[in-house]
């Protein structure tokens, strides 16, 4: 095995064999909802994409809840099954400006609501490590596409772990940046105050270059921020590292990988300390209360009136809306809309929504105090490695409870990076690090330290990335 070089990835689109190879490889994975490698993306402002630089001509996979002009934007939902986006998300436009070429839209849980990429009109995505297992979610298609060597980089969204958990399940890097550093313009909103665009790759250099190209304030998203200048950003030193201690309820693979990671970090000379979070118990309830509340409003726009699927006939506009939503949304989405509507009722907000916001504030404070003493907080991404399709191993409710490690960073608006933590018993395990705001460079430094001992691995059968398969002389 050898690391594929970015140079070969930069040549792959010039090769006509790439599209077929991509389709062929995806047939057993179902990572893509749509593939179109020929679409030379015209740039909205008339400028041409960068012809040189680390991202030039690199293929890009985009989760199907992020707008790419001319591509579908289904969000994995029946209600948007026929919707073509008339515009580009800002992150897409910026990566395109840096030279990247969107080649397809990837599978996801409907509107990003799920942990397995099984709630999708396109059916489930399979984990490249084991087709009987899920790729994680909701950015499962993006993670699987990268893990299976189909693209060097994919865009996902992370509302409560939707980039990090599938990255962990598939053995690659998954970055959930500081809230606001990547514009949300063009991300189909699920829970606006929690979610960010995220990046998935096996190559840290590409990940870093993509983050630099895509980040920064955007006039189209007033919650976006510009990065502080380098001097006032957190340093990339990894000297004092907190590990989440206590009873974490991990499966054997994850527990072993987590211990291993602790040893690896300690071996770098960093001071390692186990800590506990008093707010830990309240994280998942607070997350689901806020996420569902925001979702109930965010998803209200899907009514079949202006775009998307709608009934052929309805007695009146109100009936049309009712019918479009009844037929268009899946059960998980309906559940969260109902939950959100419930917690926002007048007279009950104090009991649910306001209380969740107070918990959120407490979490932010507690994490702030952690980062006053530590450079990073390291913790598992998910209590288990990739589980089997269906609810046999984890019920839908258990899957929600299992979001307890990932939702922390979303509630606190902090950056987190899921890094490969080795392969245990045939499945990769991911471990994440959370840092203070704007500490993405420190998180990547952490990833480099870990990679020295625990480099990312390729799933059996996918040892050769597509660029090496397609480019003549690429295989040595």
């Amino acid at each position, binding site marked *: 095995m050898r690391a594929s070089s970015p140079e070969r990835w930069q040549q792959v689109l010039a090769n006509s064999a790439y599209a077929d190879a991509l389709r062929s490889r995806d047939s057993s994975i179902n990572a893509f909802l749509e593939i179109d490698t020929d679409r030379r993306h015209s740039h909205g402002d008339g400028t041409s994409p960068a012809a040189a630089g680390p991202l030039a001509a690199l293929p890009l996979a985009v989760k199907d*809840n*992020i*707008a790419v002009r001319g591509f579908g*934007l289904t*969000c994995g939902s029946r209600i*948007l099954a026929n*919707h073509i*986006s*008339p*515009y580009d*998300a800002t992150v897409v436009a910026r990566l395109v400006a840096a030279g990247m070429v969107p080649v397809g839209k990837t599978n996801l849980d409907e509107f990003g609501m799920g942990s397995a990429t099984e709630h999708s009109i396109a059916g489930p995505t399979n984990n490249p490590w084991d087709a009987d297992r899920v790729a994680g979610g909701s950015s499962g298609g993006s993670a699987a596409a990268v893990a299976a060597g189909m693209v060097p980089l994919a865009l996902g969204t992370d509302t409560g772990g939707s980039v990090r958990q599938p990255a962990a399940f598939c053995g690659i890097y998954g970055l959930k940046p500081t809230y606001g550093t990547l514009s*949300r*313009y*063009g*991300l*189909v*909103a699920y*829970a*606006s*105050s929690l979610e960010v665009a995220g990046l998935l790759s096996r190559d840290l250099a590409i990940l870093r270059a993509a983050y630099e190209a895509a980040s920064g304030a955007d*006039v*189209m*998203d*007033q*919650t976006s921020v510009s990065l502080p200048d380098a001097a006032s950003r957190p340093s990339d030193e990894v000297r004092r590292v907190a590990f989440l201690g206590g009873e974490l309820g991990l499966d054997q693979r994850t527990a072993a990988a987590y211990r291993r990671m602790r040893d690896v970090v300690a071996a770098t000379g960093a001071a390692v300390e186990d800590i506990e979070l008093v707010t830990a118990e309240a994280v998942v309830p607070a997350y689901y209360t806020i996420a569902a*509340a*925001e979702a*109930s*409003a965010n998803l*209200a*726009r*899907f*009514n079949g*009136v*202006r*775009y998307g699927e709608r009934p052929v006939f309805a007695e*009146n*506009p*109100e009936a*049309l*809306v009712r019918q479009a939503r009844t037929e268009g949304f899946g059960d998980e989405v309906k559940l969260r809309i109902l939950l959100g*509507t419930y917690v*926002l*009722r*007048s007279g009950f*907000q104090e009991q649910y*929504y306001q209380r969740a916001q107070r918990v959120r504030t407490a979490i932010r404070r507690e994490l702030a105090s952690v980062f006053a003493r530590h450079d990073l907080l390291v913790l598992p991404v998910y209590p288990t490695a990739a589980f089997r399709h269906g609810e046999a191993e984890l019920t839908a409710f258990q899957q929600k409870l299992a979001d307890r490690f990932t939702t922390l960073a979303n509630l606190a608006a902090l950056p987190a990076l899921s890094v490969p933590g080795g392969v245990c018993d045939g499945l990769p395990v991911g471990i994440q690090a959370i840092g203070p705001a704007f500490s993405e460079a420190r998180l990547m430094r952490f990833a480099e330290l870990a990679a020295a001992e625990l480099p990312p691995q390729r799933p059996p059968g996918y040892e050769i990335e597509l660029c090496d398969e397609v480019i003549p002389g690429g295989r040595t």
Partner: protein
Amino acid sequence: MSYRSFVGLEIHIQLATRTKVFCGCRAAFGDEPNTNICPVCAGYPGALPALNEDAMLKSYVVARALNCRLSPVCEFERKNYFYPDLPKNYQISQFAAPLGRDGYLDLEFRRRRKRVRIRECHLEEDAGKMIHAGDQSLLDFNRAGTPLLEIVTEPDLEIGEEAEHLLQEFRRLVRYLGVCDGNMEEGSLRCDANVSVNEERAGLGTKVEIKNMNSFRFVRKALDYEIDRQQDILGRGGTIVQETRLWNENRDVSESMRVKESSNDYRYFPEPDLPPFQTDDAFLAAVESSLVELPPERTARFVSQYELQPAQASFLCDERGSADFFEAAVAAGAQPSDAAVWLMGDVQKLLNRSGTQLTGSPLTPERLAELLVLLATGRIHGKLAKQTLEAVFTDDMDPRQIIAERGWEQITDPAAIGKIVDAVLTEQHEAVAQIRSGDSRPHGYLVGQVMRATSGRADPRLVQRVLEERLALQFIQVLGFGGAISGSRREDGVVVPGSLESLIRSLRGDPALPADIRYDELDLGGFLSEEVSPRDWALLIHAIARHAATGDTSGIVIATGTDTLSYTAALLSWLFGASLPIVLTASATTGDTAESRESLRHAVQTAVSSAPGVSVVFGAERYPAVNLKFERVPGESGEGAFRTWNRHGVPEPRVGLWTSFQGSSGTQDLSGSAPDIPDAQMLAGRLEDAARRIFVTKVFPGMSAQALVALIDAGVRYFVLELYDTGTASVRETPFSLRHALEYGHRHDVTFFCTSQQEADVDFSTYVTSHDLWRGGAIPMGTLTTESVYTRLLAVLLTGVAGDGSDPDAVAHIMESG
């Protein structure tokens, strides 16, 4: 049972920003459907709002102008409800942290000053529009995302008229600030209301919300309807249901839309896509610099700085454009009073005729100033000035150029006019001899000859002056208008009408009067003053108007009788203001007595020596023309005397309503010899018609409301009610209660103007019964007497300044702005 009503308004204005509130689409009315939309305002998946700072600025400017507490940080929230025209199915609005709070707007309505509290101002986005066409429903999202500022008042209003007034004041305010055009028909200004009625001193009642009021008039009607409806229910012992009702403008009723139980839960929560808006020093400075002088302050300044009358100032300041125009014209050299008169009169007339606006018309402030300077310096005379104005509108040229091209320049050189006058006098030596012998009748003829010789271009006043100089004479018109002064006593002692002849003769020989006065008498009929009819007034008005137009007189003396003098004097004052000296006189004794000679002599002296204006001379006393009462006080000579009521509140109009006469005018004769005035028949017809629609009565204990109702049924539309003292009357629930008449009148567009039986200032602020009159829509007329109010009403209806009199609001507005 006495009730109190509480009305609060929710006013929405579309802010006149170039782009929408959360995206860059054009915010425009009337474009092709769905052309001004983008992913953001059409609610496409993934689109996010970005706040338009200009909308924020305009919102804060309104809040500031409404004296609100400005929030240093304001937040947006989502208001969730499903409706097909709402793209996101939530509206971005403000709830917990609106941008402005606790303001007020000062109102004065029907002489009641009030501070209406503003609860809050908040910014939100407008929805699209849904139209149902046959079996389809069509949606236009052009309007979606237009910035909408909502202003919520406390329930400080009481009646529909007052709410309408507040809305109009508010509209004026936002138009002045340039933040909204305030067009209710196009929906850029919208209003919902909440109404509750309760027993006096019992606090707020059950609130009912009223929607779908699409004009100022509907706001008033819908609110009055709702107050009546609730009062009726309470009066019958019922209870009010909390609900939302829609005004049906076709049926003049409101209909229940939904009751409280099924109302929406909007599930407000903070908008996560927009960070809180923070005001900084630069922003607050921009707010301050966007404030302009507002209508009430500007009106007051116009009165003090330019010495305008309140009615003129409020007319000019109604629109920022006309106030700016006025000030620009003054800056360009126009006399303020001239500019005001012309803008209100001839300019407005031309604008009405062409249906255009002042701003953007060919008439610029500079052109108006040029015209008025030409007129004031005598380069052109009044009638040609009017034609020059018309030519400015039709030909879009400068007045100076028009006059030069058409040869309209007035002959103002006294030497040139002197030459022409001399030629005429030489030619007309017989007429001159006649005048010198004391018969002034040929005087008008001579003026006409001079005008003819100059094709009407001679300055008539200069002609008059040169003639007076050449003949060394002054000309006084004496009009006989009935009364004992020109009557005589029959053998049986009964007074009968007579003529002025012997009195004029006595004047001509009066050694106390200057010998150079020549008298031109006109007898308008042999009648006693109690016999005066509208037709007689029409003849009198016609005669005065003719002299005012030709300027062929030094002053007018009117000999009439004491019975109706207070009416005639006030009527002439309302009509002619200070256009020329007009002196009315009468005598307590009959015929050619020492007393009547004394009055007449004094009147002539006043006419030749005083400034233009209408006044009354009786014996040795001189009075203002308005608010006179004739009283006989026992114990004195028994002859009686005039007294002025409310002397400190007596208006002496400078500009009469006659200048604004609307309607077909007389012949257009460029020779200048025939004055441009309506004919007497037409005036008589209009006055009679007006008098038929008015009824004057005094309220008295036991007065039957049914009698007034019968009068309304018979066609009376305006009442002048003479109330007790400062404006009280019985509205108790008895068969005689005036309330029935007020309510009946209200439904029939009848207006009640209220005066007092005492020498008092009617203002309805003291007694609970007068408050009920106010609520019933009666209009307190302040210090004006019944005679003054009645004649002002006649003058308004005669001149057509409020249209044909069928719009009670327009009439009331002019009546109140006296």
